[in-house]
């Protein structure tokens, strides 16, 4: 059995809204399981609308939030196993890239101070000279150099350049996994592709897997190997990205893919408009049933189980792919 780089096992995160006594519970991430293989680096994109739990899931992977139920295992070591947790090792293995590069860097600090901090404090470089070499190398790989970055403040860079620097910073530790939460949503259209291409390039060069969280399905299609769709905290479809987007199996994925404003293909049919309701998180049957055009009685009674169709998993009673493919 090959070892997995990352295993997310039935993870659930519950937030409490309001006071202790009168407060309500909100299940932000509901029984999500994902896996990333060790041997080959992949880009896994997590897509879904706002409030579907994408960021909460990321924060749990980064150990910012603690899951209420379930466990996350990173290259064999479980998050629940507190005795053997080594924070430095963890930070070397997993690195984040944040959404807005202007917020990720303090405007009053020089950009290179972040790079040196990462290199020196995590013990990768013993001296400043050694750090210089390492930092220059990673900056070169994102198309910049230490000479350009040194001594400058964040305001002297464009959003795209800052985002490259934060990718370079994440690479200093030679991580196994980079978690990028909406890395291109604050970047201009003409520079977006440069960043996304960088992910593809770095994946093979540094042998690093990416978790790419986004609501931009067109870039997700472009870069990712695997895709996970979240809806109201539940994982509803998971599998190879191209397969899912070309031929979605879950009605919600279909809705999502059809809603992308594409170039070269005009919208025709009307759409069932969703209205975000808090109570949908608490529904005990299929969460998508109230909006689903294919819903039947069974959808409104019990929640479906995850079913496997060939290489993908779907949480639906009436998946849109033919059931003959169903794995026995």
């Amino acid at each position, binding site marked *: 059995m090959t070892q997995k780089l990352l295993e997310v096992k039935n993870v659930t995160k519950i937030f409490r809204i309001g006071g202790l006594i009168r407060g309500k519970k909100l299940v932000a991430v509901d029984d999500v399981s994902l896996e990333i293989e060790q041997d080959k680096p992949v880009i896994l994109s997590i897509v879904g609308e706002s409030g579907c739990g994408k960021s909460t899931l990321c924060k749990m992977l980064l150990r910012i939030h603690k899951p209420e139920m379930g466990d996350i295992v990173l290259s064999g070591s479980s998050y629940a196993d507190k005795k053997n947790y080594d924070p430095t090792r963890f930070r070397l293995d997993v690195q984040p890239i944040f959404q807005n590069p202007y917020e990720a860097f303090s405007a009053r600090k020089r950009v290179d101070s972040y790079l040196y901090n990462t290199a020196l404090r995590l013990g990768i470089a013993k001296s400043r000279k050694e750090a210089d070499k390492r930092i220059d190398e990673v900056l070169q790989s994102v198309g910049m150099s230490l000479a350009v970055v040194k001594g400058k403040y964040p305001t002297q860079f464009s959003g795209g350049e800052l985002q490259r620097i934060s990718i370079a910073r994440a690479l200093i530790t030679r991580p196994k996994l980079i978690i990028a939460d909406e890395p291109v949503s604050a970047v201009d259209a003409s520079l977006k592709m440069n960043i996304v291409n960088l992910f593809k390039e770095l994946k093979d060069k540094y042998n690093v897997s990416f978790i790419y969280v986004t609501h931009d399905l067109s870039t997700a299609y472009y870069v990712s190997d695997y895709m996970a769709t979240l809806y109201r905290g539940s994982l509803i479809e998971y599998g190879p990205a191209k397969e899912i987007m070309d031929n979605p199996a879950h009605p919600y994925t279909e809705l999502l893919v059809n809603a*992308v404003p594409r170039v070269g293909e005009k919208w025709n049919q009307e759409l069932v*408009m969703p209205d975000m309701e808090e109570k949908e998180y608490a529904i005990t049957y299929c969460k998508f049933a109230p909006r689903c055009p294919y819903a039947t009685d069974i959808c409104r009674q019990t929640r479906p189980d995850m079913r496997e169709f060939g290489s993908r998993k779907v949480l639906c009673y009436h998946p849109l792919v033919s059931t003959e493919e169903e794995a026995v």
Partner: protein
Amino acid sequence: MLKVENLSTSYKTIDGDVQVLQNLNFEIFENEIFGIAGESGCGKTTLLKVLYDIIEFPLQIEQGRVVLSGEKNGKSFSYESGRIRDAWWKNISYVPQAAQSVLNPITRLKSQFLDSIPEEDRKNETDEETLERVSNYLEELSLSPDLLEAFPFQLSGGMRQRVIIALATFMAPNVVLADEPTTALDVVVQRGILMMLMRLQQELKNTLVVVSHDMGVHYQITKRMGIMYSGSFAELGRTDEIFEDPIHPYTQMLIGALPRVGDSRQRVGIPGRPPALTNPPPGCRFAPRCPHAVKRCTEEVPEFREVRPGRFAACHFAGEGELDDTKAVGS
């Protein structure tokens, strides 16, 4: 409908005036959806502000003017920059960027509606009668009239955006300006809002100006569009023609760089970055990033000219067929 003549504006800063719009000349017609595209900082929002006549320090008009003219209820009207304020709500309305945060979160929506409807439109109606009209209008837009009793913080972002659009179009203005109407929203909600805007435009037969950085949005809803680069239009014309056969190198590269669902061929972004407006390059502002740039481009500012009927571009070589080799990237 809206005519922009020789418009140049600048922002006053400590380092001197920063020219944001230079010599814009274009028209937006009646009964059309006009799109304005471009990267952040290229002047899209500034242009809308000037169209809506919100000229506040440090923004100033250096030369030129905007003329809003047309006809409503059989009466023709014409307003110029400086006077467009008098036409607010009746003839022109504005859906600002981040419209979700425009509503006062702790006031019920009904009183916000009442506040924004001018006295002359209400013609001695009581509040109840006006609200009756408002709730009928909301129903037409398939929104629930119960919304009027709600506080904005109780609504989702998409719902707030729809309420703002309802508010902006309640008086059936001739021109509606929408600045990034769907930027902070999800694709599914975005599609609903864009559909609503299109339906409204078809019913009112008015002019809708949509600013967005998402080329997909422009392709889906606009009839004509202008692509801005660094403070002026690079190209302007019918949307389908621009996507089919972009003339300006910037447009060509921009359309070539668009990722598409169902197509994962390698795409390249545009190298370099937009010039700083504080210190723009002489000549064509796209020249430093342009693969076709020659010496002339770095010296002489290209004229924004009509290359084909209804098709404008600001490039020395537009329409000469020399730039066609880059088209392969986009197709």
